């Protein structure tokens, strides 16, 4: 079991994901530089948080053209598990692997705190370790995490069971309290909260361990 961790010049949670995977859970990992194309030997790919290429245009808008991501799209389309955290979620929506978009928080401020989430795992492979309706505590840290989608598409997402994570107390104005969504096939998950910051009892609880460890067994 080896996890690929995408690294853009502006990624800043890449090492945190490595720490959560290797340091806290004993899952081996490999960094994927944004210019790389070699995904061989990987069982899953994580696009971590950060600011990819600076995000001056729009979060993730430039990152979608990165060579490594062309390979990640192929990997996902072949059924490979892909996880986008925070900026990684933004990138997944820009890539079209997940619907909708993340925009500036409603109150316009960056927000860093612990959020309470309810999980409805459905067919999401990343969330199979959680029970339906379970309450989780994950840290959030973002300025552009307000999930938006066309009004007529939201019922489709809901009907498909793709809204797998919701905030109990909406911190950013996301439609329908959306914190994370999954693709219909269940292999691609994007979420604004940081599960990798909830794997270490010394710093932020352990509610995220089952998410990153989902692919172990």
């Amino acid at each position, binding site marked *: 079991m080896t996890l690929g961790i995408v690294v853009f010049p502006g990624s800043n949670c890449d090492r945190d994901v490595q720490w959560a995977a290797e340091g806290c859970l004993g899952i081996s990992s490999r960094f994927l530089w944004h210019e790389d194309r070699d995904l061989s030997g990987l069982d899953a790919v994580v696009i971590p948080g950060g*600011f990819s290429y*600076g995000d001056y245009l729009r979060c993730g808008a430039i990152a979608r053209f990165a060579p490594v991501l062309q390979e990640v799209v192929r990997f996902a389309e072949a059924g490979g598990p892909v996880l986008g955290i925070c900026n990684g979620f933004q990138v997944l929506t820009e890539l079209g692997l997940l619907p909708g978009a993340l925009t500036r928080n409603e109150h316009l401020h960056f927000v860093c705190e612990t959020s309470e989430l309810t999980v409805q795992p459905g067919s999401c492979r990343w969330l199979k370790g959680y029970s339906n309706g379970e309450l989780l505590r994950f840290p959030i840290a973002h*300025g552009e995490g307000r999930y938006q989608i066309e009004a007529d598409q939201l019922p489709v997402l809901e009907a498909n069971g793709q809204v797998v994570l919701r905030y109990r107390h909406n911190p950013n104005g996301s439609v329908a309290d959306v914190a994370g969504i999954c693709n219909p096939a269940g292999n691609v998950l994007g979420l604004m909260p940081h599960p990798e910051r909830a794997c270490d009892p010394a710093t932020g609880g352990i509610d995220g361990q089952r998410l990153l460890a989902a692919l172990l067994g």
Partner: protein
Amino acid sequence: MPSSAPQPDYPLDAALKKENLSRADYDEICRRLGRAPNRAELGMFGVMWSEHCCYRNSRPLLAGFPTSGPRILVGPGENAGVVDLGEGQRLAFKIESHNHPSAVEPFQGAATGVGGILRDIFTMGARPIALLNALRFGPLDDPRNVGLMEGVVAGIAHYGNCVGVPTVGGEVAFDPSYSGNPLVNAMALGLMETDQIVCSGAEGVGYPVVYVGSTTGRDGMGGASFASAELTEASLDDRPAVQVGDPFLEKGLIEACLEAFQTGDVVAAQDMGAAGLTCSCSEMAAKGGLGIELDLDRVPAREQGMTAYEFLLSESQERMLFVVRPGREDALMARFSRWGLQAAVVGRVLQENVVRVLQHGQVAAEVPASALADDTPINHHELLAEPPAAIQAHWRWSESDLPTAGAAGINGLSWSEVLLALLDDPTIASKRWVYRQYDHQVQANTVVPPGGADAAVVRLRPQQGEGSLSAAKRGVAAVVDCPNRWVALDPERGGMAAVAEAARNLSCVGAEPLAITDNLNFPSPETPTGYWQLAMACRGLSVACTALGTPVTGGNVSLYNETRLPDGAMQPIHPTPVVGMVGLVHDLGRLCGLAWREPGDAIWLLGVPLAEARDPRVSLAATSYLERLHGQVTGRPPLTDLDLETAVQAAVRSAIAGGLLASAHDLSDGGLGVAAAECCIASGLGASLDLPSPADAHRLDRLLFAEGGARILVSVSAAQAGAWQQVLDAAAAALPAQRLGVVSADPTLAIRAGDQELLQVPVSRLVSVFEQAIPRRMASGIPPTA
């Protein structure tokens, strides 16, 4: 008297005014050069001889600081101080101000302040692991101050969050003296990743000089000179002197620099902060006793047609200068290209001790490095023999000037209402509105986040390489502190208190205080009072640092923090010597927070006991209570008893190490009443306190809200009560301690004195006032600009 110095070929008076140089400076420059400086050279002297770069007003005072100790590896003079943490780990840390830029352009001013202090850290070969900041604003009932605070906090958040360094702590205070001249001090900590500490002195004659990072543009022209002048309405026209930061570039610069330093190919490094290329070249040359030749035609420029003057004085951000081993420059530059950064060989090291600047094949400037950087002029000021009259008048205030204060309260307010009024003071209230905007968790090492304890704690787990994938047992704690009201009323006592409080805060989490970095934010030193404040505050800092064993490893001086009001009067800030202190946590398993832990735990007050008799170490003078409830900033703050501080702090650290304490919180603004309320707020638990009857039944405010006395409020579980009692018995008189009450499951803070009830407030009420004080004031403000 007409000057005998040679006349230049440009209008001299206007040029001197622009460079903030005096006629005497000009004469000295001519003497050192043996000729008149050309315009570019004059600009180089202007920035190098500013207070910002050469401490021309404060240097004699800084010389009195203790700067050495067993753990000090690098003291003042390099980009940052470095302390030895043992077990092969070394910590670089420093604080720096960005006050003037933030006053005119709060978002970019604050953002680039963060970028600048980070470069000071990683230039040494250390990876930044934490940021803190100390901020001062005018009152939030003025929309201008609300806008400044919005912009400053958003700017710090923008840069720190993007660059991936957690902002883990800080302090924010408000006073009318900061209206129009906010203070923005940023502190950074870094863990050394290289075996050798990278220093700035050039070596190796003929070695290539390599420029890396961002391009050079016309932004930030003359920022160092700008930072060393007072602010006026016209200062808004100086916005071009404020730089624009790019944290994304800086993120790459951190990675590329640390990679480059690992190779050992970089023999010297200097970041380009204030005074840009001028400062980096002359510092590297002067420190190495060599020279540097710089070819401006090879400097990566972001606009065309820049003059030598503009190249030399640009403060474009995210740039560094290296001296590199010959033959290694191509491999080094490739590293930077991989991160999307500029890299170019722009010059070479010379045997001759000059800074020689070439442009278009001609010498555009040539100045002996020592003429710029060594023996820089000192502005001598006379120290007042006794305190200024206004200060002496404040010192005559006494508590008996206040109305009587019995059990019912004061001025028609109950003690419950007084406590709530203090919790509503933005200086005391929760800073959640601020730190919620900072990513305080990135790097996955933040063990104690903002608001959790008296100091932030970061685990000492490296971000890469050896040890990065195993949980570390040790941590570093850090705080920034300055009781500016005390300093304004007695700079010497205030300076001592700043150091004592910082050490007390570290001790309350269980950390051993190691060393400080200081940021001296002061008004003009050219008035007798201004210089007296600076001199006395430095004396206070020195005395306390010596007594507490925390040497000064460097810092920053920011003078001329004053605003010329429209009517022409000058409004100086409170003198604000911010102390940034770091401490070592030997065992992260034995940390202490400020929240009560369990109902039934005993609550003890350490330090000067309550109420037995008048004690000069505790007073209502200069307190938050006096300002907030009586509208007076007056009185003489109490003298810090450094022996008592040492004893109390050592006892608390040792008790935390032994696992005896459930919580610890120091008494600061608002005294016992506020400290007890904060422990309740943080835990959601109540407390029932029985204070001794005071000697003076009409001075109950002294019991509740007096400040000073090296005091710490701790709680002890029933299981540890016996061991704690043994500690107290063994220490006897050396550790004054009073048992005040117990933590209660009933969420109410109840305080009695003798048989009289003083106050009783539901914790939910404490929480709502404490948490809403800043948000409700900000709500009327304008949204951030970016």
